[in-house]
């Protein structure tokens, strides 16, 4: 038989291999090396971490392919990169240089205010952000092979990550207790493809891997997300905006593996140096929130 590439099973399969792991934002090859040495399962290659994108303002775009290629040459673990929401040409470029996963990300400035990328058209898999189950299932409908709850990137405040994870996981629990005749109304109210609503209810979880993202800054934050029921965590600004990135990165990796063991969590939380300073989301103006991007 012919070997088949780019199937949904292999796209979704790579995310399954990342489960129970930490995916770290890195902006240089040196960062990527530190992340791999700390035990990261993958790195997200980008020019600026979300905290700096926030601070700098302006338009945030796909990173220079040269930077991404350097990072791909440096580490043996998978390399992800971000494109703008709806910017399918940035995605084509990222696929052409051979990144392992594309994050169609709200952290960058959206290129399309109504449409996301048709991700079925690509051989490279995509991860997309969500705030609730309806948004997640719309992204799956477009061909995403992995989901992450959005949180509020670049803040170091875990509250939105918790809100979004509770929303997604709570809606799945609600679906499971719902009589079958109510599923179409659920699909309609949540703007979710009906078939995916049915499948999620049957599985008792989303049909793809679901990571947490956006505001995870400490080992305790990471373990909190794991105990809430996500499959792994993305850490963006939380590592390389902290006082001792190598030490903190390794501690967060251990916290995700041993998320249910408070004694190990206590051990790995000691003497990590200063965490990223952070931004309190409750006092942040609505206009500065990026998790609202995505349709």
């Amino acid at each position: 038989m012919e070997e088949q590439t780019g199937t949904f099973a292999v796209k979704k399969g790579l995310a399954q291999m990342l489960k129970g792991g930490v995916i770290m934002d890195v902006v240089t090859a040196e960062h990527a090396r530190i992340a791999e040495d700390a035990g990261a399962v993958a790195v997200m290659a980008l020019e600026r971490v979300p905290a700096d994108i926030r601070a700098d303002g302006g338009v945030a775009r796909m990173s220079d392919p040269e930077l991404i290629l350097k990072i791909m040459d440096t580490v043996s673990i998978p390399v992800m990169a971000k494109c703008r929401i709806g910017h399918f040409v940035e995605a084509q470029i990222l696929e052409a240089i051979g990144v392992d996963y594309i994050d169609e990300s709200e952290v960058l400035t959206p290129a399309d205010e109504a449409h996301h990328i048709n991700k079925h058209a690509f051989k490279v898999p995509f991860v997309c952000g969500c705030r609730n189950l309806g948004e997640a299932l719309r992204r799956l409908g477009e061909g995403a092979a992995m989901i992450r709850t959005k949180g509020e990137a670049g803040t170091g405040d875990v509250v939105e990550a918790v809100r979004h994870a509770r929303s997604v996981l709570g809606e799945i629990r609600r679906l499971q207790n719902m009589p079958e005749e109510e599923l179409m109304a659920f699909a309609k109210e949540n703007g979710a493809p009906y078939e995916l609503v049915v499948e999620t209810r049957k599985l008792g979880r989303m049909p793809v891997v679901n990571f947490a993202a956006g505001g995870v800054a400490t080992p305790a934050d990471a373990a909190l997300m794991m105990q809430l029921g996500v499959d792994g965590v993305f850490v963006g600004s939380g590592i390389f905006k902290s006082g001792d990135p190598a030490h903190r990165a390794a501690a967060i990796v251990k916290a995700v593996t041993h998320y249910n063991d408070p004694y190990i969590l206590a051990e790995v939380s000691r003497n990590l140096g200063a965490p990223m300073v952070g931004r309190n989301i409750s006092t942040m103006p609505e206009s500065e929130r990026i998790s609202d991007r995505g349709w």
Partner: protein
Amino acid sequence: MQIGVLALQGDFAEHLVLLRRLDVQAVEVRLPAQLDSLDGLIIPGGESTTFGKLAVHYGLVEPLRQFGQRKAIWGTCAGAIFVSKDAHRDQPLLGLMDISVARNAFGRQVASFEANLDVPALCQVDPDGRPYHAIFIRAPLIEAVRGQAQVLAKLEDGRIVAAQEGHLLATSFHPELTEDTRFHQYFLQLVRSRM
């Protein structure tokens, strides 16, 4: 019979689901003491560098080596790298199987693939001999088998993707991502042979 699945990271939950479907008691293993009551161990897919870091830090490397001297171990993908003697790279390995592997031998994720394999050994658990549909994700290749290690499956072009050395098993691909339980059944035979 109780089977452990190394749960440092990776798709250990998928292995647990298939084992339980076969009515086998299956537990997650993260610390050395959890190996004590087990009859066999699966090392799942994931990132072998991550396994290595965590296994070293939590003192699992020697206990896993000792376990593998006596009892059955099966490594899938990253797990196959972890049980090998040589991965051409400075990273912690168990060195249990006399095989050398090349990491990411097929290329990056866009080259990940599905293919049917002819695996004669599976006739021991199911005589119908149908092809085995295998999923390869950024897969390693088993470059060479030495000593007591034997080839269990090859791609059409002859490249080795599964090997066995007595009670030890290594597959480049992921039986845990499929509904086909034949490889798990085959492994359980190896476990029983050492009980």
